[in-house]
Structure formats: structure tokens, C-alpha cells
């Protein structure tokens, strides 16, 4: 795991964070399932650390603001259409989390051609909380994901990183599903 330069994190008095999805993002038929995706993604981080997350109805005042945009969307970092760059997020305490509207997002079920929304959401929330990229391929914070795959559970590497920033959730045990690989254990390679 890594952090952004300067190790930015949410301040100690800000442990109960609100998040909101840009109004009008989802159709009525997709709304419930899509919101559930983000709720699960936040819950995975909450289970590992001292932070909690609550969905807010006020997009403008939420700590974390989630939006789908296509192309140039005003932050100086235009999206590039299908595939390529899927999403980006800003380090604490900015709170912006942007996803490329041009992708074929998979909200539920499987699609060999689509990008699993929850997988990307969990990754980008890691950035919003202060984690950088990891070179551990099993980690959520590994920068790439292939179409048709799903990677949503925090690995040991992710948990160690977020707990270094915010401490551990005393109510939960380890939620790691992908322990450190034998190779890492043996040669000390990697980033811990």
C-alpha cells in the first residue's frame, strides 16, 4: 500500500463521512441497485477501519461526491471514452469521485465485456480516503482491472494501509480475503 505525497487524510474530527451520488445519475429502474453497489463499497472500508459512511441527499454538501461524466467534465482531467481510463478520484479532503460515463458499467450480474462498478467504486473510495496505488496485484488498490472481472474485497495490503491512516475497527476482525502471497512473504518484495 502507499499514500499520496504528504499522507493526506480526513481530519480526526471527521470520522463520520457523508457521500452523495449526483442527482439524476441513474434511471428509476437502476437507482436502487446502483445505490446498493456504493453502499456495499463504502461498507467494505468501514468494516476495516474507524470511519463510517452515510448516504446524503445533498450532493453539494456531502463530504464525498460521486458522479458519472463523459469526456471533458470541468476538472481538467477529461475522460477518454470506453476503456482506457475508467475513473479517477481526489485525495482527502477533496471528496470528488468521478467515473467515466462512457464505460459499460455492470451493476449486477456478470458481463464479460463490462466493467464491474463495485470493483471500481471500492478502488476509488480508497483514493478518496488517502490510499495511493499498490503494486500488489491482489490488492483493491492495484491500478488496473480487466473487463468481466470482479475484485471487491479488501486484501491484507489494503487493510494495512487504511488502518495506518485511520486505525482499526475494533468491532471487526480481519476482512481480508486475499492474504499476502507466499512470494511476498519470502523475498520482502512489494510495498509494505
Amino acid at each position, binding site marked *: 500500500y502507499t499514500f499520496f505525497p504528504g499522507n*493526506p487524510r480526513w481530519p480526526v474530527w471527521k470520522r463520520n463521512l457523508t457521500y452523495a451520488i449526483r442527482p439524476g445519475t441513474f434511471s428509476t429502474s437502476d437507482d436502487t441497485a446502483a445505490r446498493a453497489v456504493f453502499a456495499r463499497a463504502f461498507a467494505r472500508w468501514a468494516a476495516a477501519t474507524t470511519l463510517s459512511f452515510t448516504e446524503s441527499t445533498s450532493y453539494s454538501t456531502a463530504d464525498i461526491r460521486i458522479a458519472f461524466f463523459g469526456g471533458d467534465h470541468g476538472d481538467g482531467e477529461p475522460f477518454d*471514452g470506453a476503456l482506457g*481510463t475508467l475513473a*479517477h478520484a*481526489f485525495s482527502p479532503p*477533496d471528496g470528488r469521485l468521478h467515473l467515466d460515463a462512457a464505460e459499460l458499467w455492470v451493476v449486477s450480474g456478470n458481463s464479460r465485456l463490462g466493467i464491474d462498478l463495485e470493483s471500481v467504486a471500492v478502488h476509488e473510495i480508497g483514493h478518496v480516503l488517502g490510499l495511493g496505488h499498490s*503494486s500488489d496485484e491482489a490488492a483493491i488498490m492495484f491500478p488496473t482491472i*480487466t473487463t468481466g472481472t470482479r475484485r471487491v474485497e479488501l486484501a491484507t495490503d489494503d487493510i494495512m494501509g487504511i488502518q495506518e491512516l485511520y486505525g482499526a475497527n475494533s468491532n471487526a476482525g480481519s476482512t481480508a480475503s486475499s492474504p499476502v502471497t507466499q512470494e511476498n512473504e519470502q523475498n*520482502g518484495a512489494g510495498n509494505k
Partner: protein
Amino acid sequence: HAHPSLNFNLSGSAWSSFYNLSGCHKGEHVPGLTAIKQYLHTFGYIPQNLNFTDDFDDSLESAIKTYQQNFRLNATGSLDSGTVRQMMSPRCGVPDVVNGTTTMMRSRGLSSVMR
């Protein structure tokens, strides 16, 4: 704030053209290498946005080596097929290298030193 620094825009066909660059190495001049340089610049591996050319120069080799180390590929500095395949994978837009420092590989901790 640390934030993405994207100025990279490739269409689907341009992405697939990356395949044609497999096997390139230092000293070659191959049409399309400019796009590789732009890609590596986007994610922080080439810090300065110079007037990129299709020359496989020292800066490109160095950037590719850092990229390969970050993704645990063989750090050959050439565009082998595994590296090109990795570059074509859908990915997060947050750079891997910020201000010239890779954010993906931390220095080894005290416990590693002691071992």
C-alpha cells in the same frame, strides 16, 4: 491535493494500435511511440511534457523500466508483449508517479531491514 493529471485521449482504435509496438526497444524509431510516451506521461512516468517523438530514447526506456517495476514485470526497458498488454488494461486515472516519485513501491520498512 494529489489528483489525476490527465491529458490523454485515445480512441479504441488507438488503444489497439499499442499492440503493433510490441518488441520495440531503445534506438528504434517507430511510428506510434509518441502515444506510448503520452500514456506514460499521463500516469506520471515521464514528468515533462516535451515535444514527444517516435524515437525510443533514454527517457522512454527509463519510464518503461519504472512502469515494469511497479507492475512487477521484467524490467527490461523494452516494450515486450506483457508490458504492452498491461498498458492496454482498463485502469484508474490517478497517476502512479507523482512529482517524479513512484507511489506504487514504498521503500522497505524497518522489519525488512532487520531480516
